[in-house]
């Protein structure tokens, strides 16, 4: 992890800490939502040479945490086809999980900005584990954590339902270099309580 992330986290902690006000009303879990989301994930940077953009699907539990802050828990799946030159296996199964917070700043309404942690688990679609060349680690399970920032744009609301757009920049802490991915998806959300 580079120093800039360290500084960014310190700044985040300072800004968040000193801007926060003590809430008197208990909003926690006062609202709960379930959502389904589908979209496309775009490898960004070096890993564009490894895998192609892919469709993804995920489910989400969304809950009210503070007055203008919501928590999210997501699980999803994507199948990333490898680039055509790579013959060892056709693609990679990726499952992901995310936890984080969305916050609605009054000056950005109706857009919500969010941050959180990601965990991905990946395994190749076939491939010979005895061949020690590139891709060998993916023939067994591989997993890594990362962080993300996101923007949520609700487009339509109808009674208990909402439709909108989520955009994520996900930064996975891989080696020899970090991996970046852009995710854009359309969600349908239903308020449960």
């Amino acid at each position, binding site marked *: 992890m580079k*120093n800039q992330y360290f500084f960014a986290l310190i700044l985040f902690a300072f800004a968040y800490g000193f801007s926060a006000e*003590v809430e008197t009303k208990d909003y926690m879990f006062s609202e709960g939502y379930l959502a389904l989301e589908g979209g496309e994930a775009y490898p960004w940077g070096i890993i564009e040479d490894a895998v192609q953009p892919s469709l993804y699907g995920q489910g989400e539990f969304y809950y009210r945490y*503070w007055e203008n802050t919501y*928590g999210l828990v997501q699980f999803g799946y994507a199948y990333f086809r490898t680039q055509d030159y790579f013959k060892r296996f056709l693609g990679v199964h990726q499952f992901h999980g995310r936890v984080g917070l969305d916050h609605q700043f009054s000056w950005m309404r109706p857009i919500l900005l969010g941050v959180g942690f990601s965990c991905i688990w990946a395994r190749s679609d076939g491939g010979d584990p005895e061949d020690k060349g590139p891709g060998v680690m993916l023939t067994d399970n591989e997993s890594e954590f990362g962080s993300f920032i996101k923007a949520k744009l609700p487009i339509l609301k109808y009674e208990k339902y909402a439709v909108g757009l989520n955009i994520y920049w996900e930064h996975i802490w891989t080696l020899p270099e970090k991996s970046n991915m852009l995710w854009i998806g359309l969600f349908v959300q239903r308020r449960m309580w």
Partner: protein
Amino acid sequence: MRIFLLSLVLSISLIHAAIPVETEGMEPAISSDGTYLTASPTYFFDRPSLMAGIHSQSELWSPDFLTKRLLVDRYSVLPSWQIQEPSIWMQVGNEVGDMIYHDILTSSEDRPVNRTPMLEAGFRSNSFHGFWATGRFFQVDHFSSNTLRINRKTAGTMEYSLFGANLPGFSTGYAGLGYTKDQTEISILAGKEYLWLFGESGRWISALLSPRIQSQFHYKKLDLSLVYEDVLYINKEKGEEGTRKEWSGSLYFPYTDCCNSNKFKTGAGLAFRFVNDEGDTYFGLENDRAFWAFLQAKYEPIKDFTVSGHAGMNEKDWLIQDSIQYSLKKGTQTHFLFGVQNILATRLNPMGESYEYFDQDTISLSTDGLLQLYQVKIEFNQEWKDLQLGIRSSGFIEKGAETFDTTGFAEKKSDDWFRYGDVSRINSWIRGWAGEIEFSYKYNDLFKASALVGMEHLWGDEERFEVEPSEHWLEFNADWTINKTLLVSHSLHYRSDAQWNLRHPEPFEVPGDWFWNASFSQLFPKYGLTLSGTLLHVLSDTTLEVPNGNENRTRFFCAIKKMF
């Protein structure tokens, strides 16, 4: 670096911040206030600041360790079989740096060493008429990649754990039942455990405990524990195998008022081990048994003046540790403490193994003679509203310090060395002085911060010290508690060089290093629920801290816990 330090000073934070570790007992792997060197979750050199003597904390027997795990000749929290509070929990983590899609792009020669995960899940039920059930599976695969190649040959398989193929330092699963009511607590746990023990030779020794059964009984002022372990040692490379059946436990009467006086408290106990070894067990206990009978006493003749200590003995060894402490309080804001401590012992840990068997050599883990250690300690604390200042200093002299006489080495693979020799003593005086200054600041319940700087110097026959400890350390902590439900904690550390002198043909230097830890926790107090994500040992150079050990890498883990 100047900007970097400036940021740190600005972000000065709470000491002993709420940075969680992978699992209880892993604290030394992220500590810097003293000398903490990690080889694996089953081996730490842990010597806190202002500690007297050149040994590490876990080497010296203490009544506090009665129910801790004895690994060869030192005590360890891990693998912990301590009963948890009623809850259900799960944790997953990884040393940061798996390749994922970079795997497709990276040639064999550029591949980083594989990063390893951790996994834990457990529960303890609520009581039903006092009865409860518990179960826990946990293993920390972190700190296992450097030893993988050698340990794979020893185990003869990669499947030497309850889950996965990383040959983790420990892999434990247990379940059991208990009863808690009024002043009575009874529990019995049974499980299976894979362990890698770090011998004084520098070898990693595989041990499969199956079953391990632990029972504990507490009633008012009586604690009983009894443990049975059926241990299988294997070395497939050498075609060796041995078994050990061990019964161990303790009977303990904790401090209680004595002699019709609330100024005088006493306690007493007896710890024991009985083993039955067959085949190649790699360790030996003299006469196949060890016991330790001890007394504790605490006397407070006048307010704030305390004399306390414990003394124990068995057929071969004895140990006395005592201290006198005077505490002076001026108002509620000024606190002064003066203390002296003495240790006289024929062996640091009289319950440890007597021998380690390595090739044709028998390594004696005890020696003749006596350790004498005398320490003087002063502390001054001052509070001004939200600001607190602490100044602490300690000086000690020690003669007869336990060390190791290395008589030769065997090289296993490139720069992995095993040593021959015996535990020995440094029969000359060692002197040491250490000092620490700590500032802490609190802003309502929102923000807490602290900064700690410390230094230490030892004089004596340094070349015979197992470890020459760090001479400087620095620690900054900051905790934010936002809306009472979101905790953001971080701690930044610096530890100066340390050096191992006796486990490697040349002195093995552990370079000084900075590292940073950060944690984010979401609390749901009404629901007893906690979600957390924690980054440990960030920004540091990846170095070996113990010869033949594993690198202390950057790692991340997340946890969910629901209290009942």
